[in-house]
Structure formats: structure tokens, C-alpha cells
């Protein structure tokens, strides 16, 4: 009806009614966002892919086309191959821990009880605090001389004071420390997502299971768990993408050391691209994050819809 009126009205009126049409208004409202995202995400992504095939160095956005040379160099470099493995190790172990812990905590926090607000505040701290700062806090936590963690271990007689472990200076211990910090900072976020999932189960389901006699562990296994699976998977996918593509934790804690034993794809790309100025190679290395991104994107497409997240 609005368009009928417009057809009869003057030109000025017609213009006003154009914005009434759903398609026009929708396009108007969405286009700034689409333009912005294309400019700041799409184009740099394409640029990153392009740079990976050139020998660009710091100070320029172009270089000679070198085909797959950067990829070949990277693949022949044992440090790079190590970084692939380390990234996978860090991601999967930390996220396995996160899923279990977050699931437990979410179930504990779902119902009201005295002190829930305060406990929730404490549990949220690792996620709320700026990540680069908390990682520095862990530099001190794991300090070779004054580590409070070693202090505890010594008090519990698990470690001798003469043989204090150097959590950031020994290859496997450093990896364990990074995995711990990644799990520590992700658990609150995963808990929140789990909480969202649990809360979205309608009360009717709970009532029905109570009527049918399903309680406690039985109810959890046959009723709650299947219903929460989609959002649990969303939490895992978020965790994977944020951990695998994270640079802050390994960069500040160990900067890839000791002896490149904790070098990740992200830190190695940063070192190669920015510190050594080898932009082409750095871009090639960072492109190895794309399979992770694709995997997570597909997973999200499948499960986020089921979990009503998008």
C-alpha cells in the first residue's frame, strides 16, 4: 500500500517511501558493515595470500613472484615443521582440559546458591583480565628463582628445593606451562558458552525427565548431554580457533624458546615477518592457519545453527 501511495505522490514523497521497502532498507543498513568488513578483512586476507607467493621484504607491499618458493623453504625448515606440531599439541591438549573443566563448572553454576556471584567473579577473572597482562603474571608465577608454584610443590614434598624445575626454560616443561596458561584463560569463556547451552534447555524437558524418573547421572547421560552437544561443540570450536591462532601466550612466555621447542605457527610467522623483515615468508607461514580456520568455520556452520547461536 505504501508503494501505491508513492506512485501517486510527488517525487520528494516517492523518495521517502523508497526507504520503506524492506529490500532497500535492508541493503542500506547492511552495506556499511559489508563494505567495512570487505575492506579490512577480505582485502588483507587476499593480500596475505598474494604476499605468500612473493619475496616481499619489510618496507614494501610487493615483491617478485616466486611461486611456491616460500612454502618450500618453510616446509624444509625443521623449526617450521616443529611449529606445526607444537601448535597442534598446544591446541588439542589445552582444549581437552577446557571442555571437561568448563562442563563441570557450568553445571555447578547453573542453579542459584549463596555466594554464586562471588565465585562466578573469581572464575571469570582469567578471561576478563587482558590476556597479555595475565601472561606476564605467569612469567612471575613460573619465575626460575621465586616461582610460587615451585614453592607449593616444595611444601608438598613433590619437588626437592635443590632441584627446582625451570618451568619456562626447559623444553617440555615450557610446553606444559603454555598449555596450562591456554587452558586457564579459556576455561571461563567455555564455561559461559556451556552455561548458555544449559540455560537454553526448556524447563519442560526437565519436568518430563523428572516424571519419567530420570534423575542425576542417568538424566545427564541420556537427556542433558545430547541436548548440550551442539553448544559444547561450538565452545570447542571457539577454543580451537582462539588457541591455535593465538600469539600472545607463547610470545610473552617463551618467545618460541627454549631452543624453538615452543615455537608456534603464529610466533614463527611473527619472527620471520616482522623481526627478520621477510614478509613473503612470514605470510606463507601464517597461511598454514587457514586449514584450521576452514575446519572451524565448517564446524560452526553445522553446529552453531543447531545450537541456535546464529
Amino acid at each position, binding site marked *: 500500500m505504501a508503494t501505491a501511495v508513492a506512485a501517486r505522490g510527488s517525487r520528494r514523497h516517492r523518495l521517502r517511501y523508497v*526507504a520503506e521497502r524492506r529490500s532497500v*532498507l*535492508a541493503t542500506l*543498513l*547492511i552495506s*556499511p*558493515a*559489508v563494505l567495512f*568488513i570487505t575492506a*579490512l*578483512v577480505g582485502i*588483507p586476507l587476499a*593480500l596475505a595470500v598474494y604476499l605468500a607467493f612473493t619475496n616481499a621484504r619489510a618496507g*614494501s*607491499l610487493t615483491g617478485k613472484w616466486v611461486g611456491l618458493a616460500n612454502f618450500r623453504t618453510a616446509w624444509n625448515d625443521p623449526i617450521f615443521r616443529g611449529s606445526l606440531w607444537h601448535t597442534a599439541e598446544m591446541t588439542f591438549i589445552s582444549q581437552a582440559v577446557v571442555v571437561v573443566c568448563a562442563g563441570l*563448572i557450568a553445571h*555447578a*553454576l547453573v*542453579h542459584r*546458591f549463596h555466594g*554464586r556471584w562471588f*565465585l562466578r*567473579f*573469581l*572464575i*571469570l577473572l582469567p*578471561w*576478563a*583480565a*587482558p590476556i*597479555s597482562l*595475565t601472561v*606476564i*603474571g*605467569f612469567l*612471575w608465577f613460573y619465575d626460575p628463582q*621465586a616461582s*610460587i608454584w615451585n*614453592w607449593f610443590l616444595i611444601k608438598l614434598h613433590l619437588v626437592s628445593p635443590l632441584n627446582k624445575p625451570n618451568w619456562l626454560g626447559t623444553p617440555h616443561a615450557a610446553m606444559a606451562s603454555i598449555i596450562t596458561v591456554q587452558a*586457564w584463560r579459556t576455561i571461563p569463556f567455555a564455561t*559461559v*558458552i556451556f552455561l*548458555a547451552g544449559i*540455560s537454553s534447555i526448556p524447563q519442560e524437558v526437565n519436568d518430563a525427565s523428572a516424571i519419567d524418573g530420570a534423575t542425576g547421572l542417568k538424566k545427564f547421560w541420556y537427556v542433558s548431554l545430547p541436548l548440550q552437544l551442539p553448544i559444547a561443540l561450538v565452545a570447542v570450536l571457539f577454543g580451537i580457533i582462539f588457541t591455535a*591462532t593465538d*600469539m600472545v601466550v607463547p610470545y*610473552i612466555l617463551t618467545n618460541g624458546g627454549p631452543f624453538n621447542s615452543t615455537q608456534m605457527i*603464529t610466533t614463527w610467522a611473527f619472527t620471520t615477518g*616482522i623481526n627478520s623483515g621477510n*614478509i613473503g615468508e612470514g605470510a606463507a607461514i*601464517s597461511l598454514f*592457519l587457514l586449514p584450521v*580456520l576452514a575446519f572451524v*568455520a565448517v564446524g560452526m*556452520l553445522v553446529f*552453531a*545453527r543447531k*545450537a541456535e*547461536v*546464529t
Partner: protein
Amino acid sequence: MTLRRNLFSYGVAIPFAIVLAFPFVWMFVTSLKPEAQVYDPTKVWNFDPTLASYGFLFHHTDYVRWLENSAFVGVLVVLITLVIALPAGYALARLSGRVGRSMGVGIFLTYLVPPTLLFLPLSRVVAQYLHLSDRLWALVVVYPSFTVPFAIWLLMGFFKTIPQELEDAALVDGCTRLGSLVRIVFPISIPGILTVVIFTFSLVINEFVYAITFISSSANRTLPVGVPTDLIRGDLFNWPGIMGAILIPSIPLALIYNAFLNRFIAGFTGGAFR
């Protein structure tokens, strides 16, 4: 049954809360130690508390400058994000049907593209084409690239919880679509918008990769980069000062997160949570 449930809640929540929050307790304790006693093994828990480190932080470092820089970038980025994301979030939640759903998913996916993938080409773009090297404006321009998708996604969820009937009533009463958006929908979604503001701001405060790539001089750094790069000079770590620097933004942020958590969850699940 409630007793068993409460026992479970306390039995799980308390140990985890202790484990997750303990590093902050230790940070707080360290921040109160005089520098000379930090490495003293006899004075781990019984030391002479002092606020000297906080004084050092505020008077002898660029810490306040970094706080200001982060606040400056944060406020501007939040404004830009709202201007772009509010209309888009509304349009995607209401007006677009199937095309809209795919676009919504597409925008959600761009949030997953990591800065560690884009920082190299963006560093060159910022330096060569925008000439914004070492300027905070570089961050103001680049940060919306990840805050906008995140905000659109959250806002989509919030707008879906607002019943269509409200807008239809406004339309029947003679309001234009744009008018109903501005006069009916936005005022009701203020809690949701506030939540988006808070989490967007925290995304800005957390960002490290772009900040360390684009900004090089100490006075122009933002908070998450200034502390690791400038408070740690070679081998000299002023641990009490550093710990204080960490706690000052963290505690308020955690308090605010906790206060807005239920709304965040509501936006996240798009109204499935009631």
C-alpha cells in the same frame, strides 16, 4: 535433592575458583612487596607491605599514558562499531529472510579470521598507504575489523528477542520503518547495546598483535603492549610494579563482566535463553 545439588555446586565451584583466581591473589601479594623482598625466600608470605610499587607505576612510567591511549582507542572504536553494527544487526535480525541468514553467518565467520593472519599485510597497508605508522589512529581504523563482526553477531541475537509486534504496532500507528527503528527498538535494546559496548571495549583492551605491530614508541603504546614491552627492560623486572599494572584494569573488568554476564549469554543464544 537440593542439598545434593548445592554440595555439587560448592564442591566444584570452590576448588575451581581457587585454582583460577589464585594467580591473581599471588599478583596482589607481590604488588605489595617492597622490591628488595621479592626474591627473598624467607619472606614469601610474611613481608612488609607497601604501596610503593603503585606509586612507581603512576609517577615513573608511562602507565597512565597507556591507560589513556587504550581508553582513547576504546571509546572511538566502540562508537565506530556501534554506528556500523547497530543498523546491520537489526537488518540481519529482521528484514532479510534467507539471504540475511547466510549473510549473518558469513559475518559471524569473518570474526574467526585471526589477526595473526592479517597483521602482515595490514602492517604494510597502515605504513605505506595510510601513513599511520606509530599512530593510535592506525588502531582506530583497524580494530573495527574484528569488533564489527562480533558486535553484529551479538546484536542480531539481542534484536531477535524484541517481539516483532512492537514494531508492527508502531507501523500501524504511522511510524516509518526507520522511525520505528530509532524510536522503538533502540530504546528497548539499551541493555543489550550496553552489553555489546562493554564486550567490544574489552576486545579492544585485550588486543595485542596489531598494537605491537603498528605502534613502536613507548608513549603511543596501548595498555596490553606497553606493560610487556616497556615495564620489562632487559633483565630488570620491577615485579611489584608489573603486578600492580596487571591488577588495575583486571579487577574492574571482571566485575563488569560478571554484572553483564546474563545479558551476554542472552545475546549469544539469540533469545533461546529466557
